[in-house]
């Protein structure tokens, strides 16, 4: 058995890692919908999901069950191949793009096979990501075309035009980072931001603030989120490209959208915000207790909130959840080895969730673009600014060289 594992480790370990990552990502996707509904509800002075489980925490589960058991009608005279292919392409590409993201600094050896906290370490990982993004237009475009409905067709057309336009700005906006790093590998880009060791100040965001703004705007447009969600503008197009999709096929579009939000947040974190690096200088050793300092009070607050919750189920579940969180917090202080090991992942996830919160915050705040505004903004503002950023960065780098 052990010999078998050692021999086929190159095959087995990636498969196990893929299974773990897909499980985590799908769970995060589900809870992202809960967070989104809660945050938007509170922005609009509502309660949000509140019925299923304490604070509506089991709502994603109920949604999942509903998606599986709903009827899945096939609209009349659709193009069957493309109609079935579209949600699969969309979800597959969204999940594939996560494969090249490095989530943490560690390398470890299992059964004589060295591996890191990512599925694939490619030395052109950024290009691979852009290649997958380039293909993801097809899912939406095909869904719109195959549904045999004018709303879907308009949504699909809008989306392909929008994604093609903003892909240029997206690609050009990261060229500045590439010029600074001199490498396509996401791991190298992160490592280079930590070379100077003065934390926050050596991240790429400071020399590349223009690049970051262009990148983030273009990335929101690529993921079809508010204020760029014209492909599914419900006031004009019912639901855009996924009007004719129901049940699990609709859920696949939904999961793909949230997964690409996660990918884009990871990418913004890696390229501009130092990936898994701590924002504090290396000499501030006490900041490594931050995860515990955050977890313990939050756990205690959940216990305090739980014991006076309105129904019995919540009074039983919430204190246990809070106690587990506080215990993990104390455990991290007691076992410094574990605490050191999770530092990278803690900072990475903290940054990614900040970006995801900004995504949701914008959805609660900003109105949608008009279509001509969208196009003129992309071509006449975003593209020239990102080209100017490339020229500016190259000039500064040349200046420093001489």
């Amino acid at each position, binding site marked *: 058995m052990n010999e078998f594992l050692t021999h086929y480790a190159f095959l087995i370990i990636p498969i196990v890692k893929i299974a773990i990552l897909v499980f985590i990502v799908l769970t995060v996707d589900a809870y992202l919908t809960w967070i989104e509904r809660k945050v938007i509800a509170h922005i609009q002075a509502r309660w949000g999901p509140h019925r299923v489980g304490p604070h509506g925490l089991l709502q994603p589960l109920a949604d999942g069950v509903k998606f599986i058991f709903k009827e899945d009608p096939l609209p009349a005279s659709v*193009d069957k*191949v*493309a109609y079935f*292919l579209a949600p699969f392409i969309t979800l597959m590409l969204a999940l594939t793009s996560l494969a090249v993201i490095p989530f943490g600094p560690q390398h470890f050896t299992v059964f004589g096979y060295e591996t890191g906290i990512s599925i694939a370490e*490619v*030395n*052109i990982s950024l*290009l*691979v990501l*852009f*290649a997958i*993004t*380039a*293909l993801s*237009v*097809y899912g939406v*475009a*095909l869904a*719109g*075309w195959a549904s045999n409905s004018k709303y879907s*067709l308009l949504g*699909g*057309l809008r989306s*392909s*035009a929008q*994604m*093609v336009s903003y*892909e240029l700005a997206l690609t050009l906006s990261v060229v500045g980072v590439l010029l600074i790093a*001199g490498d*396509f590998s996401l791991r190298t880009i992160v490592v280079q931001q930590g070379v100077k060791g003065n934390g926050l100040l050596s991240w790429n965001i400071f020399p590349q603030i223009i690049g970051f703004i262009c990148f983030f705007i273009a990335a929101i447009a690529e993921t079809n989120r508010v204020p760029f969600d014209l492909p599914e503008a419900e006031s004009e197009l019912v639901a855009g490209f996924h009007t004719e999709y129901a049940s699990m096929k609709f859920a696949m579009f939904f999961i793909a959208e949230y997964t690409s939000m996660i990918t884009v947040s990871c990418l913004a974190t890696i390229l501009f915000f130092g990936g898994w690096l701590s924002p504090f200088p290396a000499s501030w050793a006490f900041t490594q207790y931050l995860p515990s300092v955050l977890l313990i009070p939050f756990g205690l607050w959940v216990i305090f909130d739980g014991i006076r919750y309105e129904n019995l189920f919540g009074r039983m579940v919430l204190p246990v959840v809070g106690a587990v969180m506080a215990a993990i917090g104390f455990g991290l202080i007691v076992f410094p080895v574990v605490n050191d090991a999770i530092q990278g992942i803690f900072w990475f996830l903290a940054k990614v969730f900040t970006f995801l919160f900004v995504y949701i915050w914008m959805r609660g705040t900003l109105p949608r673009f008009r279509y001509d505004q969208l196009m003129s903004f992309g071509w006449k503002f975003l593209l020239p600014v990102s080209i100017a950023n490339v020229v500016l960065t190259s000039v500064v780098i040349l200046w420093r060289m001489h």
Partner: protein
Amino acid sequence: MTAPLVIFFVLAAVAVFGAISLIVQKHPIHSALSLILVMVALAGLYLLMGAEFVAAVQIIVYGGAIMVLFIFVIMLLNAGEEERTNFSKLAMYAGVPLAVAMTGLIAAAIVGSNAAMPARAPETLTSTRQLSTLLFQEFVYPFELTSFLILVAILGAIVLAQREN
């Protein structure tokens, strides 16, 4: 059979299947989708040869940009299924023998070549840094000439579009 050889045959089969499907399909969108399949399979073949950069560019430029434009235009014009016409006499008497001759020629060339094909591109070409040095120093004039050609084509397209108004 070694693993790279298996992957090569799978990718080659996918590429050939896509290419045949491209011709046989009646609907333009299905043909375009088959062409995308060919592009992605070719990118996989480049990857197998160790040319990672070329593979990524193949997908970004051909699979992404160009084919999206194809699909976009087909969707915009809402092109329907094409009708089959009678088999052309010229294709019958000139096309089929020519196709057979071409296949035979290529097969003969492959069988006749004694030297084993290098499985990987030389290491110097795989690095993106070296590729760009080559492109912007040794081949800078052809490169600039190509971009000038593309610029002319863009200007031509704008002129053609403006003439209608």
